[in-house]
């Protein structure tokens, strides 16, 4: 697609997403659950189909033509991901099933170096995937978890974070963009502060890589993780970025084929990076799909996507303010929509998020209801659950208007009872 000034990005790309063109309960689908997973463009679906129809073979073994094509596709996608996040080397990109697996990889392979009393700093807004692996690691090693809390405007409390850091801090693992609060955390400053005390930093970038340009060298994080399915790629593929020397120093995570150099009955030597961490036949088609997704997003331009989502965000928050019962969590955006992610987790007075989601579904509007895998944060906010509308670059202002209209109807429907 060619991006012109005349039409919005959404107007230009919607034809690329077949799934968006359907009716739910007789109403056009309005998909606003993008923080859970994104939809997939034809280019990604075609890349997967092309691979299975033409090139399917196992990778890194065999010298036949199909094996060579499969390997080229799989490794070519790695080059695309490396460029997409500006990694210094393709060897710094390890494929995983998703961000959760990437975090577990670090927790096992690197985490075994921790000793009792060592400290791991997390925040109360972490997704369970950036919490449970560290709880397990703390149980195994005797390391201690410390938590960054929220500011009054429900953002990352940088000052309190700094006060938690000491020579005991060995790791900081925090989310870049909260899937619930929508706040964009100051990861560059977090890394700089953590490095002053010699701690490593892992960034959970699941909600940032799909929506804005990411430069791992500028952030200077030690690891960064993301899931493909939130950025137009299929499920079952994600990646771990890690600084080369650090990944080299880490022992393997899973053992098996693919990750070896020489194998004897009683010992083995391991493959060089990144294959040391990719045991077994990988998700080849999914990796190729991820490469196609990166191409697709890059053609639109991550700057353009981010700018368009800010416009949507300004509209979303402007309209949400029309409904007095709505309480949105996290910071308010600037008037131009900047300053937070284009998503809103909210409660609607007496209307339970589950009931809200059912009513919106009848209007064709897909939102999330529940705790969004951030139970401790919900406890912290004293909200049992929230509803969440989350946008992507294929959403339109008109869709937000449909969402707001349905939301008003739902609030009225229950308001009659509670009024």
């Amino acid at each position: 697609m060619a991006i012109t000034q005349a039409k919005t990005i959404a107007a230009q790309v919607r034809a690329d997403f077949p799934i968006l063109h359907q009716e739910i309960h007789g109403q056009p689908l309005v998909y606003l659950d993008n923080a859970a997973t994104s939809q997939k463009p034809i280019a990604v679906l075609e890349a997967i189909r092309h691979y299975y129809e033409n090139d399917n073979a196992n990778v890194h073994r065999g010298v036949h033509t199909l094996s060579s094509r499969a390997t080229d596709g799989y490794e070519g996608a790695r080059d695309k991901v490396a460029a997409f996040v500006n990694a210094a080397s393709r060897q710094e990109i390890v494929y995983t099933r998703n961000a959760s697996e990437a975090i577990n990889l670090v927790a096992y392979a690197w985490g075994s170096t921790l000793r009792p009393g060592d400290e791991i700093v997390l925040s109360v807004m972490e997704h369970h995937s950036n919490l449970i692996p560290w709880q397990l690691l703390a149980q195994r090693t005797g390391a201690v978890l410390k938590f960054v809390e929220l500011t009054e405007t429900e953002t990352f409390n940088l000052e309190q974070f700094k006060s938690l850091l000491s020579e005991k801090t060995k790791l900081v693992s925090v989310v870049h963009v909260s899937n619930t609060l929508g706040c964009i955390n100051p990861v560059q400053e977090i890394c700089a502060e953590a490095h002053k005390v010699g701690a490593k930093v892992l960034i959970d970038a699941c909600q940032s890589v799909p929506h804005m340009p990411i430069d791992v060298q500028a952030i200077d994080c030690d690891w960064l993780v993301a899931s493909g399915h939130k950025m137009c790629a299929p499920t079952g593929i994600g990646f771990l970025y890690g600084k080369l020397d650090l990944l080299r120093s880490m022992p393997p995570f899973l053992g098996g084929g693919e990750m070896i150099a020489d194998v004897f009955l009683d010992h083995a030597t391991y493959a060089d990076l990144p294959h040391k961490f990719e045991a077994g036949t990988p998700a080849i088609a999914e990796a190729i799909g991820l490469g196609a997704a990166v191409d697709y997003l890059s053609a639109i331009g991550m700057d353009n996507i981010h700018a368009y989502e800010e416009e949507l965000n300004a509209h979303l928050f402007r309209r949400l303010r029309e409904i007095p019962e709505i309480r949105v969590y996290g910071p308010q955006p600037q008037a131009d929509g900047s300053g937070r992610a284009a998503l809103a987790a909210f409660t609607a007075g007496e209307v339970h998020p589950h009931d809200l989601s059912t009513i919106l579904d009848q209007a064709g509007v897909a939102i999330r209801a529940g705790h969004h895998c951030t139970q401790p944060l919900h406890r912290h906010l004293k909200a049992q659950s929230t509803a969440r509308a989350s946008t992507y670059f294929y959403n339109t202002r008109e869709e937000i208007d449909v969402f707001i209209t349905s939301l008003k109807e739902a609030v009225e429907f229950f308001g009659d009872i509670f009024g």
Partner: protein
Amino acid sequence: MTLGNLRDLYQQVILERYKKPKHKGVTHPVHRQQRGHNPSCGDTIEITIQLSESGDRIEDVKFEGEGCAIAMASADLMAEALRGKATDEALSMVQRFQNMMQGNGDFPIEQRKLNVMQGVSQFPVRIKCATLTWHTLKAALEAPTLAKPEAFVSNE
């Protein structure tokens, strides 16, 4: 939007019970208690039961908890329907309710209030909301003695 379907789901009785439950609280004394939760959405419920001296009849049922209109109304209607019922009859009502959620059958005339939940069967993702209270009741009744407060059942 098609409010018609929603009126089937959110019948007036359900909305009223959600707003003003009649059986919220804790029984005195507590002979059985059980916590239940729906891990996918965070809904929680705690059922307490007062049994007859012989232990085979339900004197009173109350519930505490947080959840959606469907879950809370279902708990309130269940508590009402169970008063005075033999425990084995209560267990057969659990099965009858689950069948009704699958679209199979309903309750006889003397328990017909429970039939207002029938509309939930048309919303498969919401069945868990309606059955949470019944799963929790079943676990409470099947416990030989007073369950430990920290134990809970999950409907997943």
